[in-house]
């Protein structure tokens, strides 16, 4: 029995690994078909991820918003909701962090947490709307979150122009005291944009895991996610839990925005289209099996691939979109893991 359990966990890990390998192989085949040199391509990719201290720094930098976006999606998934609105939550979180980071003058020890919390709250509010509508009006959260994305896009742009405009389509920069950027981290990674946000992201992942798996609230959230009727029957408030779930998920999304606002960019631009990070979060959550630690690993993979894609294009002339294709295929393979699972389970049964 112990062995069986062990096997199950093993399979859960094996599948994304297999999927990643298959995705990379498919990527190589596509490069070959496209007349590019896969060896050169992957070499450049490797260098783009690990080739220099800066590459490593940039990979880790790219990870933090991805982890948080992945947590936002994964948390909602675990509680039976599909939060396709991380993109919007990220944008409002980004704006809120920049606003607090710019407008206040405080010592770092207060300023940074405050700006981060502001981002979380903004994201939470953005998650609250679909949560409320789902709980009280049974409105499909997917459609509301899609709409909220657009509202976030236009409202943040407008707010920057009205209140934070520093010219050239961007907001003022955050104060030094609110910045997550670090001379030290930049110097050890030869001037990458690596910042302390990664710590925030990892803490958030631990919080998600602990909250869901170890607390009574998490028990309720999971129960409501899996079976609303039984949850109501057992005395849980389905409505409150749906709302809470969207709020927490949105807060993670908002935090992802703080990574950009206080870390990578230190300001916010007037965006006319989405950043894509929120949607990448869906992929990250899926590959990470909605598990907090899986999400960190998946974010490392996608963050690395994304930051290295330009390098691949620069050195091996392979269009960086190849990486998008590889990512898509990895998701496909993970999603279609049923077949792999069946085969493995059968093997296991026969071996017993």
């Amino acid at each position, binding site marked *: 029995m112990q062995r069986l359990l062990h096997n199950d966990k093993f399979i859960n890990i094996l599948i994304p690994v297999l999927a990643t390998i298959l995705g990379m192989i498919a990527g190589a085949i596509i490069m070959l078909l496209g007349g590019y040199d896969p060896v050169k391509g992957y070499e450049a990719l490797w260098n783009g991820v690990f080739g220099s201290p*800066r590459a490593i720094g*940039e990979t880790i930098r*790219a990870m933090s918003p991805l982890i948080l976006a992945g947590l936002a999606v994964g948390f909602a998934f675990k509680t039976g909701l599909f939060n396709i609105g991380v993109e919007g939550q990220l944008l409002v979180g980004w704006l809120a962090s920049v606003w607090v980071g710019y407008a206040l003058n405080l010592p770092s020890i207060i300023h940074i947490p405050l700006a981060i919390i502001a981002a979380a709250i903004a994201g939470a509010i953005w998650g609250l709307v679909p949560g409320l509508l789902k709980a009280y009006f049974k409105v499909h959260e997917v459609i509301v979150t899609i709409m909220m994305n657009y509202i976030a896009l236009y409202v943040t*742009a407008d707010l920057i*122009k009205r209140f934070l405009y*520093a*010219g*050239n*389509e*961007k907001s*003022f*920069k955050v104060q030094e005291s609110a910045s997550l950027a670090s001379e030290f981290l930049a110097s050890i990674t030869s*001037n990458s*944009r690596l910042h302390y946000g990664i710590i925030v992201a990892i803490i958030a992942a631990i919080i998600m895991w602990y909250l869901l798996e170890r607390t009574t609230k998490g028990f309720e959230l999971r129960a409501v996610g899996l079976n609303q009727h039984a949850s109501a029957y057992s005395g849980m408030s389905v409505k409150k839990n749906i709302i809470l779930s969207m709020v927490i998920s949105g807060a993670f999304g908002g935090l992802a925005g703080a990574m950009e606002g206080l870390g*990578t*960019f230190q*300001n916010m*631009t*007037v*965006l*006319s*289209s989405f*950043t*894509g990070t929120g949607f990448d979060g869906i992929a990250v959550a899926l590959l990470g099996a909605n598990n907090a630690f899986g999400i960190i690993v998946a974010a490392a993979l996608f963050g690395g691939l994304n*930051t290295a894609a*330009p*390098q691949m*294009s*620069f050195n091996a*002339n392979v269009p*960086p979109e190849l990486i998008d294709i590889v990512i898509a295929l990895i998701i496909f393979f993970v999603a279609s893991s049923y077949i792999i699972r069946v085969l493995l389970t059968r093997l296991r049964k026969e071996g017993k």
Partner: protein
Amino acid sequence: GTGDEQENAGTDNGGDTPAETVDFKAGLVTDTGGVDDKSFNQSAWEGLVKFGEERGLTEGEGYRYLQSGAESEYIPNLTQFAENGFDLTIAAGFLLEDPVQTTAEQIPDAQFVLIDSLLSDENWNTVWLDNVANVTFKEHQGSFLVGVAAALHTKTNKVGFVGGVDSPLIKKFESGFKAGVKAVNPEIEIVAQYVEDFNDAAKATTIASSMYEQQVDIIYHAAGGSGNGVFTEAKNRKANGQDVWVIGVDRDQHEEGMPENVTLTSMIKRVDVAVYEMAQQTLGGDFPGGKETVFGIEEGAVGIAPTTTNLTEDTINKIKEYEQKILSGEIEVPQTDEEYAEYEGSL
């Protein structure tokens, strides 16, 4: 050139005969528009190609571009060039202001050209970095001239302006254009609207449609890729017998108006000239870092497009007249809403 067949057509506006080969590398980082946006980025790339071909450089080695897929790629792209031994990295557009500043500070021995913008600090004070050359244009001057053309050609006495995003840069286009129109005939009504995006042709189409529907017969666009939507709408209308026109921007957009022939004229902004000039100077050891190089009518870098088939002789002469007035300083073309308001009051 090296005879790379798959290369961009229409870039051989320079001499075909490579002169002496030099050891020089120049890179261009575009915004998300890409080097064939029929507009700003393309123009910059054409300038670099001309330079590269004249100097016998190989594309991809001696000169190349990186298109940014997203905002977060500006810095990696700039860094890519700066760290890979490129002598000059050109940043196309004011959106790259911050990234250029960051990268230039981090890599002091790399040289950058920032087009359309200066660097500034928190308090709006201009910052000069020795390894950044700032290039700006007097777009308002050129816009004034096409405004004159519009005023002389409108039959409905109503013209329109479609801007990319509401920003100080595009305001220069708008203010100059309106000033030019009013200079000819203060009675002409001008409607202006911004797409709030340089790459949303669909939205621009709708805006243009509503303008044309309200009797506007000439629209001047300063909207980058979105401007294609204005052309689409004008061509549709012309095909249906409506007498409408577009004034192009940045490049000679006569081709974009064909076959319906809707391009009245274009306000050209010779980004290619500027890029070429900057590369030449840098190559000559004369990198104009730490200052602003301004290109205006005087430098032949802004003005009316060479294709003038849709303008009457009279119009062309009138434009020349105004050109002189601007050159002589008789007319001070407004660049901002405030300056325009003042200008309008003085009429």
